């Protein structure tokens, strides 16, 4: 009898244990779910913070990448200029453009080199663009640390020049008024002039060394009768609106010029 009551009790206990443990498991699952939910919310907050930090890092990296790109470009440009400076046979002073004439009527620029750096009045100025050198103009006024340069496009600018192909000489005259081209005048009509012909400095007059690029022929005006062409329009090699750095030629000797002319 005792044995029977024990069995009954055990069975009852187990029965209730099963029920309770089932509910316990249910509650435990619920608790776990709630815990997981809270955990995920907390985690989400952390992830959000991490995401924000990542965004900031990406932004910083992007900024740094842009900066590196800019520095790389600058470095490449300076390297090219340095290579060019080393390749030319003249003593040059490299200068950076810092301003322009406040008056719209003159084509002049201001550079950051002056008497202190060895710049003198009437020194030829050249530049290097797209793998080619080209005439920029000449120094007009020289201060201690700054100089004014008269561009070849100025109305008051004259350069003795020649057609590289045929050797016919003439005079390059600025057109002013912010024109893109310059005039090549006093060129004999005997000279065969074609579109794209190269015009270089002739070296006559002694100011500009011989053989420096001026520009390319873009138009020939043969409308007037006479010994010379009326006007040959020449597009300068140098794009003045993109000009940043120039080289002021300190002195040039005929021997050095001849060397430069050799292919």
């Amino acid at each position, binding site marked *: 009898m005792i044995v029977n009551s024990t069995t009954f009790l055990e069975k009852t206990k187990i029965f209730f244990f099963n029920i309770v443990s089932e509910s316990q498991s249910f509650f435990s699952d619920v608790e776990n779910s709630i815990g997981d939910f809270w955990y995920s919310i907390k985690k989400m907050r952390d992830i959000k913070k991490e995401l924000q930090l990542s965004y900031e890092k990406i932004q910083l990296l992007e900024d740094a990448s842009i900066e590196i790109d800019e520095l790389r470009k600058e470095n490449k440009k300076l390297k090219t200029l340095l290579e060019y400076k080393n390749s030319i046979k003249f003593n040059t002073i490299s200068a950076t453009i810092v301003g322009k004439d*406040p*008056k*719209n009527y003159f084509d002049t620029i201001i550079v950051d080199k002056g008497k202190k750096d060895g710049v003198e009045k009437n020194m030829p100025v050249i530049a290097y663009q797209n793998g080619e050198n080209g005439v920029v103009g000449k120094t*007009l006024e020289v201060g201690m640390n700054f100089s004014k340069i008269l561009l070849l496009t100025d109305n008051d600018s004259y350069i003795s020049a020649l057609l590289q192909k045929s050797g016919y000489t003439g005079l390059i005259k600025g057109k002013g008024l912010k024109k893109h081209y310059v005039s090549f005048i006093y060129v004999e009509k005997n000279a065969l002039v074609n579109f794209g012909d190269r015009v270089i400095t002739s070296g006559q007059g002694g100011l500009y060394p011989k053989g420096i690029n001026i520009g390319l022929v873009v138009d020939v005006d043969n409308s007037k009768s006479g010994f010379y062409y009326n006007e040959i329009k020449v597009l300068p090699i140098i794009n003045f609106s993109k000009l940043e750095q120039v080289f002021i030629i300190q002195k040039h000797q005929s021997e050095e010029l001849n060397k430069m002319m050799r292919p």
Partner: protein
Amino acid sequence: MIYLFYLSIILIANIIQTTDIIKFFTLMEQVQPNFILLIVIFVNIQEKNPIVGEGTGFFVGLLEDFLSVGLFGLNAFLKTIISFVVNLFKDKFYIENFFFAFLFVFLVSIVYSFFYLILESVLVGNIVFWKNFIQLAFPSALYNGILAPFIFPFLKRAHNKIMFFGKGK
């Protein structure tokens, strides 16, 4: 305080005029407004004391002369004269009005450019008068006139604020 304001706007105008910033305002590749002249006109309109206005004209012109390759002293001389002219006529125009502001600045600019080009071409001969007058000076004067009714109220507001705060000190 107000002189510091004048100096600041003169320097800003000078920086705009002599650097690549001017390209943002350049029309048809060659027509540019003359911000320096606009500032000189503005200072002369605002200043009750004509000596200050004319002095500003002279100082600004001299600054321009140092930077320009034109005849030295011409800007200083003409800007002083133009300051005198502005002082003479400023009360005859209702400059608060959009149209009169345009007309006044256009006329002053055209007179200034006319005399500048005449004197530069006669005394130095480095520029062709008519070409420059028609192709550059006239459109630039128009441009100045158009800009004036937009720039002047903005500068005037700043000027009045500085005057108001300056009185308390």
